[in-house]
């Protein structure tokens, strides 16, 4: 939808796949074209129908070698093994063109006696599969037959009309999947059989003996010609689609060629996994790659390189450990259960963020860990595509830590964020490693906003009109990311269908709607519970591109599943159904594919804007479309509807008849986001950067709607650029003011950027009132310890970071001590938490810089050790509890969980000073070796000294230390005893209860 960095990543990954890497799986060549296979695990064999050699090959599962062959009648096209293992039924596609006589037939092989019987069929068989009742469903070009293999009798279930079967001979380089033109398979429990051909599809309910046939059309063709059915038959794959029993697409693979003879799919219900090869469009096939995806929405997990292409049906062993699939040479065997033991390479993070700031122009370094997810030692190479970004070493063996270095001076003039790429390759790994995105931001004090890294392709943004939340649509992983508007942290993830396109919130504010480009369903989520509810089945299986809700209608722009024009549906949320509107008022129901909908928040209207320059207006009072205009040759960028009969499409402000009133300036760049708020608005733009996102900062403007001609003078530069649209995704909704008017959220290059509502207000200089340790808020501060700065105007927003290493500038605030940048954990207007650098001791001076200016110098004393226990524990309604943990039950020590003799206690604190080995400031403490404090503490309860077990930094934490002690058996009991920690002449105490 948007110009995509992720498209580049996918392309890079694909090219890498072609150029590098080992492959996973073994090819078993059969000297012919395989058309079907059947797994006989009790006998330890796989039966392979060799279509062109007139054999059923019997492959040993132990050796993966063809051990025997069963000669059968001509063109064995389909196989099925009875559930009791007694019979193997072979269908023969012998549909010869006159004057030759046809030899269509069924062979029943009794596997216990090795007896064979062949029965002639009037029509060519398209497929065969057994139900749990040990009777085989045989599908021919004219009827459905039920075969009793024991008696050899057949019963016609239904007839098929209008199906044309291919005749033999066929042109060279035709494959069984093209000739037989059908695939049939049963569910794991044998209760359902599904199949499809070029136009036919059907479901057979075995226990109720109900056959449900139907016909379909598909563009592109529904390849690969492979069916896989879940264990209970509740979902299945036909070619590139994942369907439910009503044949609607739960989801479908994107970017597919539809080739019938390349690829496969296999469902592993127990692991909610689908293994699939879906070749992309194009005349030249890329190196074969198998995708491993989630079975509910086809969200990608990983990609595995294959030795050759699959070419039809696949089956999994009953324990899911081995995949057998028809392939170019015959059969491919993949030990998917042992995939973790194959060489693979992956980075432990998707993104690395370098936040340049005006306090710190030193070369910045971060560590990136490259691992083999299976724990193996795999060689790899890693390289950067950007000058000023380097890695060292550039090759290694997993597990390895790579140093990623950024020279801020190279990016100093950029002012926005550069999204660079680290490409990982490996000649040993079987997977296609995902590149790492490196976000390098350089900013100046006048730039506003704090960006939050959100990996992935983000395509839509909505603020909840009722709750302090906002929703970000991540398209590459099929997710809605739900963020808390108070602290901008993610609080939930909602799973969507494949390729989510746009969101809307119902007028009653209860439901979030998500339309997907690769699903026949509109997802519906309850916003109170943040749980999915029953989705809306779209009429005709049309695909939702955009959705909007007025007070009396929910409308959706759809891509037609039947190949017709894109059109608008009306959604009935009560029935969870949609209807294709017969007309749009006096206009035909026909829109451009690249059309978006947006509703005014008062529910009075919905505007539709199309990339071809067309505009439509739905009037809720009339209950129909009242305006249709085409005053532009093209439209794109921002779109919005106000409660005061004003609309925006691109740079155009439109009146209640969608007549252009005026144009916004375009000098600051292309329109990205627009949001009406009462009778003013916010607007964002970014300089166009060709095919990518802008590395310049972009601007936000507060627009006075009564005078829109002078918005340039109101422009404020942002920390980084808002996202711009691209080909096929002309429109962008990237700006969302939160309903409580505390902040404005913008989709930007790195994820989203938070601006305070008054981002453009003059900012007062920060003032530091007090600096204390962050543990017990007392004055003892030591090198490496966590500190809290209290004051005023310390930051315009509340923001906590989880980035490692800790950034030295956060939310426009940077703190220095004696000129040295201080890593920051949290900022807010009145409080800032940070780590005192290990290098700092003695009398020091601190200065805080924000866009409002610099604070006065604050002088304080840093002593070598100042152990102070955190008071951040919470138990029930009680807060501020000292973080002393009883190892026995893992709970905080309180009066109701008192200390006992022989207890082991873990005390979390800060201020224990330097360690061995030394840990860099801002970095988490290592686990091996542990970073032990150089000065040994003593811990007493009353006058009894406790046994020290460990004293040093807590592994994985920044600036947090821990002391482990054992309580002696002669401890005295009491309700209020002092627990005292002394180190290097500094002591701190807290009260504890001790019982016998």
């Amino acid at each position, binding site marked *: 939808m948007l110009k995509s960095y992720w498209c580049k990543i996918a392309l890079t990954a694909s090219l890498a796949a072609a150029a590098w890497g080992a492959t996973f799986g073994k090819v078993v060549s059969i000297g012919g074209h395989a058309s079907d296979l059947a797994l006989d695990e009790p006998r330890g064999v796989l039966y392979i129908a060799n279509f062109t050699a007139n054999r059923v090959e019997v492959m040993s599962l132990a050796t993966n070698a063809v051990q025997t062959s069963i000669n059968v009648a001509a063109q064995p096209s389909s196989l099925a093994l009875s559930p009791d293992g007694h019979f193997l039924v072979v269908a023969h596609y012998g549909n010869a063109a006159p004057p030759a006589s046809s030899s269509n037939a069924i062979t029943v092989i009794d596997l216990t006696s090795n007896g064979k019987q062949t029965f002639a069929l009037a029509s060519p068989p398209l497929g065969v599969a057994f139900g749990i009742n040990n009777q085989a469903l045989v599908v021919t070009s004219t009827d459905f037959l039920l075969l009793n293999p024991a008696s050899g009798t057949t019963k016609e279930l239904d007839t098929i009309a209008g199906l044309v079967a291919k005749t033999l001979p066929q042109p060279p380089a035709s494959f069984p999947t093209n000739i037989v033109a059908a695939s049939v398979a049963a569910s794991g429990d044998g209760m359902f059989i599904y199949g499809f051909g070029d136009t036919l599809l059907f479901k057979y309910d075995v226990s109720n003996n109900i056959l449900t046939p139907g016909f379909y059309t598909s563009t592109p063709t529904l390849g690969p010609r492979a069916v896989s059915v879940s264990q209970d038959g509740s979902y299945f794959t036909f070619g590139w689609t994942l369907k439910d029993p009503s044949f609607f697409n739960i989801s479908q693979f994107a970017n597919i060629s539809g080739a019938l003879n390349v690829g496969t799919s296999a469902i592993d219900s127990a692991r909610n996994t689908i293994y699939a090869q879906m070749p992309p469009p194009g005349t030249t096939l890329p190196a074969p790659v198998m995708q491993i995806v989630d079975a509910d929405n086809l969200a990608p997990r990983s990609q595995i390189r294959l030795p050759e292409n699959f070419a039809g049906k696949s089956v999994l062993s009953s324990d899911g450990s081995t995949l057998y699939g028809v392939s170019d040479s015959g059969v491919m065997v993949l030990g998917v259960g042992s995939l973790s033991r194959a060489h693979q390479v992956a980075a432990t993070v998707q993104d690395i963020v370098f936040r340049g700031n005006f306090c710190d122009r030193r070369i910045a370094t971060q560590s990136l860990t490259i691992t083999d997810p299976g724990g193996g030692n795999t060689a790899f190479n890693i390289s950067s595509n950007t000058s000023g970004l380097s890695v060292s070493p550039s090759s290694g063996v997993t597990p390895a830590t790579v140093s990623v270095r950024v020279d801020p001076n190279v990016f100093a003039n950029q002012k926005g964020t550069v999204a660079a790429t680290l490409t990982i390759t490996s000649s040993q790994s079987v997977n296609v490693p995902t590149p790492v995105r490196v976000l390098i931001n350089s900013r100046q004090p006048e730039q506003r906003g704090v960006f939050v890294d959100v990996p992935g392709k983000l395509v839509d943004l909505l603020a909840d009109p009722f709750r302090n939340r906002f929703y970000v649509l991540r398209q590459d992983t099929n997710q809605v990311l739900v963020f808390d508007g108070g602290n901008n942290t993610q609080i939930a993830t909602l799973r969507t269908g494949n390729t989510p396109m746009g969101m809307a919130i119902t007028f009653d504010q209860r439901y979030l709607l998500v339309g997907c480009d690769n699903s026949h369903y509109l997802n519906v989520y309850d916003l109170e519970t943040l749980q999915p509810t029953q989705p809306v089945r779209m009429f005709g299986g049309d695909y939702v591109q955009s959705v909007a809700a007025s007070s009396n209608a929910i409308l959706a722009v759809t891509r037609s599943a039947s190949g017709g024009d894109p059109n608008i549906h009306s959604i009935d949320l009560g029935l969870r159904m949609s209807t294709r509107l017969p007309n749009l008022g006096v206009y035909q129901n026909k829109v451009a594919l690249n059309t978006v909908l947006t509703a005014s928040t008062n529910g009075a209207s919905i505007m539709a804007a199309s990339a071809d320059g067309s505009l439509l207006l739905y009037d809720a009072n009339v209950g129909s479309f009242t305006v249709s205009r085409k005053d532009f040759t093209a439209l794109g960028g921002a779109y919005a509807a106000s409660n005061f009969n004003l609309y925006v499409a691109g740079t155009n402000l439109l009146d209640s008849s969608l007549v252009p009133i005026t144009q916004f300036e375009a000098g600051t760049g292309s329109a990205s986001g627009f949001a009406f708020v009462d009778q003013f608005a916010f607007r964002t733009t970014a300089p166009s950067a060709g095919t990518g996102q802008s590395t310049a900062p972009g601007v936000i403007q507060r627009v006075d709607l009564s005078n829109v001609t002078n918005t340039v003078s109101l422009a404020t530069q942002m920390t980084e650029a808002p996202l711009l649209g691209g080909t096929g995704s002309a429109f962008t909704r990237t700006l969302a003011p939160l309903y409580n008017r505390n902040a404005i959220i913008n989709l930007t290059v790195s994820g989203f950027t938070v601006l305070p509502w008054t981002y453009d207000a003059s900012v007062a200089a920060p003032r530091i009132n007090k600096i204390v340790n962050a543990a017990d808020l007392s004055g003892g501060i030591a090198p490496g310890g966590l500190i809290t700065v209290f004051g005023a105007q310390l930051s315009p927003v509340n923001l906590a970071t989880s980035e490692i290493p800790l950034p030295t500038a956060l939310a426009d605030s940077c703190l220095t001590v004696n000129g040295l940048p201080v890593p920051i954990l949290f900022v807010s207007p009145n409080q800032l938490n940070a780590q005192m650098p290990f290098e700092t001791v003695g009398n020091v001076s601190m200065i805080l810089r924000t866009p409002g200016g610099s604070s006065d110098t604050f002088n304080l004393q840093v002593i070598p050790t100042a152990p102070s226990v955190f008071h951040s*524990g919470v*138990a*029930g*309604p*009680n807060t501020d*509890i000292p973080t002393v943990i*009883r190892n026995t*039950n893992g*709970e*905080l*020590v*309180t*009066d*109701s*969980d*008192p200390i*006992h003799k022989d207890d082991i206690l873990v005390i979390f604190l800060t201020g224990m000073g330097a360690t061995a080995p030394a840990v860099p400031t801002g970095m988490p403490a290592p686990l091996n070796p542990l970073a032990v404090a150089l000065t040994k503490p003593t811990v007493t309860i009353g006058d009894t000294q406790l046994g020290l077990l460990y004293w040093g930094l807590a592994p994985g934490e920044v600036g947090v230390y821990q002391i482990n002690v054992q309580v002696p058996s002669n401890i005295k*009991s009491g*309700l*209020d005893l002092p627990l005292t920690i002394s180190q290097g002449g500094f002591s701190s105490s807290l009260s504890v*209860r001790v*019982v*016998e």
Partner: protein
Amino acid sequence: MKHFLPVTFFVVLAAAPAALAQKWEVGVAGGGNFYTSKSFTNPLGNADAKLANGFIVSGWLGNNSGRLLGGELRYDYEQSSLQLSSGGTNVSFGAHTQAVHYDFLLNFAGREARISPFVAGGAGVKVYSGTGREQAFQPLSNIALLTKTNQLKPMISLGGGVKFRISSAIQFRAEVHDYLTPFPNSVIAPAQGSKVGGWLSDFVAQAGLAWTF
């Protein structure tokens, strides 16, 4: 338990009747009990504390030193829970008690009588044991703390009952007792600012069988 009940205590109490070399009796009994509650007072609020109704099993070794006078050394085990309640809030915490005491018995009929009422009185010790799962937050912990610990308290035993002779060697006994101890303020400990005191009554009703020899 062994930490709180010195062996010498058993020896002293058991040796006196044994020296008289009179009619001996061993028995076991079971039944139920209920405790009276005590109030914690605190500026933040008051709460009632007690042990919950539970079951009791006991065993004894007795000696009838005269025609109507006897004595017995007795062990009681009660399974219960500590309970604290204030307003609508109730807190429970697993617990049990064990007691050893010597009671003098005054029978109202001779040893050979088919039915013999008796009264009993004596003293001993009782160990209260909190056994529940300790958690960082316990409701009403601002008033009192139900604690996983043991506490030994002196005990006074008062009671009475009826003996039914079933055969020359076997008696059926039904009896009631009130076991009084000072309040166990380490197991149910007052929080800062709370006060509690007095004695805790444990009313016990039991029935059992005794073998005489």
